[in-house]
């Protein structure tokens, strides 16, 4: 059997991918709620809300799964993150709390404009800020600017994440999530709204390309990142595949093949997550904590793997049932088929 610690790291990457593709798009929905303009703004918001409502809580659990696996299997990594990234993690939590609560308050509130408007704004604002913070955390782990000898507050608790690179990853995450949401939403809406999201998806896709470039340029400050992103044997095929997926998404959007666009965009984001994970290997926290150096005793890992396997057998059919019930084909507007 391959190393159980490695397998659990793979499971975590898969769960993170699911969180990015599903939970990420829910955040992105909030971003488009914030940016909803024009006469159809209420309808745009209603479309977003209808798409998110039945699934966002399930999508959110991927994050919890990642955290519980992290502290069970890699306790030292969890301890490290919790100490040095305390501030962005705490802010992320506030964002998660505000977003989730505001969403149900709006959905179940009295429905008058003042009430919905206010909570809608909280929902949309928190949905926009939280992905930036999540991205910053990922950026900080990637850059690995932790100084074990540090003693000042700044160097211990601020320096690791307040870097141009980490912040650029934050905005990259935001743009990617908004992009995913826009692509997905083309399938959930009436013709007019769908066209609107098509245009937005194309813009966000272009912006994501720009952000990717900025991240790459700023990675100059973290030479290992750029090195692993360019030099290793898998780098070129992976970049080619990601680029191809991005291009395919744009083509499919252009041709109004929204179902195919959805698949391509998801593939693109998944490839980005996997590229990051490969660049990061074997580190969990670059330069400081590896899969091996932080893993729990072997018998714990094996047991956890078994739990994950059994859990997946129950979970995946249930999830696919959920999505089949609330998938796009149940939007009875019938306009995106010509």
């Amino acid at each position: 059997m391959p190393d159980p610690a490695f397998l659990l790291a793979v499971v975590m990457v898969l769960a993170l991918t699911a969180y990015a593709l599903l939970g990420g798009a829910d955040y992105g929905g909030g971003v488009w709620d914030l940016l909803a303009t024009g006469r159809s703004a209420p309808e745009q918001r209603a479309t977003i809300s209808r798409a998110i409502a039945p699934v966002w809580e399930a999508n959110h659990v991927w994050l919890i799964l990642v955290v519980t696996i992290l502290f069970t299997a890699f306790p030292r990594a969890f301890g490290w993150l919790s100490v040095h990234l305390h501030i962005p993690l705490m802010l992320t939590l506030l964002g998660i709390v505000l977003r989730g609560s505001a969403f149900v308050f709006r959905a179940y509130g009295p429905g008058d404009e003042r009430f919905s408007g206010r909570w809608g704004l909280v929902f949309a604002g928190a949905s926009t800020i939280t992905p930036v913070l999540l991205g910053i955390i990922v950026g900080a782990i990637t850059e690995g600017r932790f100084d074990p000898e540090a003693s000042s507050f700044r160097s211990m608790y601020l320096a690791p994440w307040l870097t141009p690179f980490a912040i650029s990853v934050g905005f990259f995450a935001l743009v990617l999530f908004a992009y995913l949401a826009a692509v997905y939403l083309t399938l959930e809406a009436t013709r007019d709204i769908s066209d609107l999201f098509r245009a937005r998806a194309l813009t966000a896709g272009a912006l994501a390309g720009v952000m990717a470039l900025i991240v790459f340029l700023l990675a100059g400050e973290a030479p290992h990142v750029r090195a692993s992103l360019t030099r290793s044997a898998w780098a070129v095929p992976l970049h080619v595949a990601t680029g191809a997926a991005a291009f395919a998404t744009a083509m499919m959007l252009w041709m109004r093949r929204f179902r195919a666009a959805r698949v391509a965009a998801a593939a693109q984001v998944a490839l980005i997550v996997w590229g990051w994970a490969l660049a990061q290997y074997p580190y969990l926290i670059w330069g400081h904590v590896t899969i091996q150096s932080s893993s729990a005793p072997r018998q714990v890992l094996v047991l956890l793997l078994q739990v994950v396997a059994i859990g997946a057998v129950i979970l995946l059919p249930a999830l696919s049932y959920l999505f089949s019930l609330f998938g796009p084909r149940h939007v009875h507007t019938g306009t995106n088929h010509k």
Partner: protein
Amino acid sequence: MDSLLAARWQMGVSLAFHIIFAVIGMAMPVMMVVAEALWLRTGNATYIDLTRRWAKGTAIFFAVGAVSGTVLSFELGLLWPRFMEYAGPIIGMPFSLEGFAFFLEAIFLGIYLYGWDRVGGRVHLSAGILVAASGAFSGVFVVTANAWMNTPAGFRTVDGQVVDVNPVAAMLNPAAGAQVLHMLMAAYMAVGLAVAGIHARLLLIGREQALHRSALTVALWIGLIPALLQPVSGDFAGRVVARTQPAKLAAMEGQFETRARAPLRLGGVPDVDTRRTPYAIEIPGGLSMLAHGDADRTVTGLNDVPRENWPPVVFVHLAFQLMAAIGVFLAAVAVWGAWLAWRHRVFNSRPFLGILVLSTPLGFVAIEAGWMVTELGRQPWIVQGVMRTSEAVTPMPGLVVSLVAVTTVYVALAVIVAALIRRQVIEIHP
């Protein structure tokens, strides 16, 4: 305020907030499902009306429960990183199992709330049953993790290194059974009785009799059966504490002196300076009897526990008295209710409905008090006898800031949830 104190407060505030939503998330689905099953069986429209109302309330509570639970999963590390590095491998498994339970709960709740016209009646009901079952499982798993902190098991320490970790043995630690049983019953009784109290009030002021009678009937079944049995499971929990955590038991009872025929105290305020507990009604030998099943057995008092290992005695004692008093009172209410039900007079007895109204918050008060007993009674240990809370806390300074932020947000959320439930669920007239 130093870091340790701020961290303890923040953990306490976060948990005290979450537990309210957690128990609602465990018990409301059971009530929804019962009402829906009654509708499917009888075709009586009152039941479907009731089901939909309860479902709406559940949706609001569930979302806030989910986000506040997420906060907790991170706070375990943000506030107690050394604890999690130590305990993660040992008790991480119940948390991971809990994660899968959450998944099922969230998935089937989505289907339940939004699938009314997309799935058939039976499938819909089954989704509700799965929500209720996974809610109960989440409670079970997380409480075994807490029980491990009280009675750590499933590992050995050799030269400061943790070896021979056995997560299954850790889950099945000595306190797990008693705590899980007591907590599950607490959840159903607190929520059942709170809902009963609300509908009793609406009956008393003359609102839609049919609806509120049906609601009251379902809620009383869910609430009163565990209420009747809760003192028994509490007694069981107490025996486990006596066997495994003598300092906690001594603090609960305000017992300073180690002695045979230790008395059971009702009330009283422990005085840690004079080491006595005045103003209590004492039942001779009662504590020895309850704790060890024999009035002549010896009960360890706090005098035999080093002073630095004392939990906050006054608070733990009073919280325990409060929980037990409520437990006995609600068991009496349950007996009365059973008698009235037997004579088919529940709805006609205004005094009984009045008592139910007064009891609305009591189950929740007992839950909070019970957790204060468990958690504060374990101090100064985060893992009983193994790791001190002060060793576990994060080095991060300035925790007061996040404490204030978390508290402010939670107080605001509590106010809004209360207002929403009132306006959108309770006071709607269909």
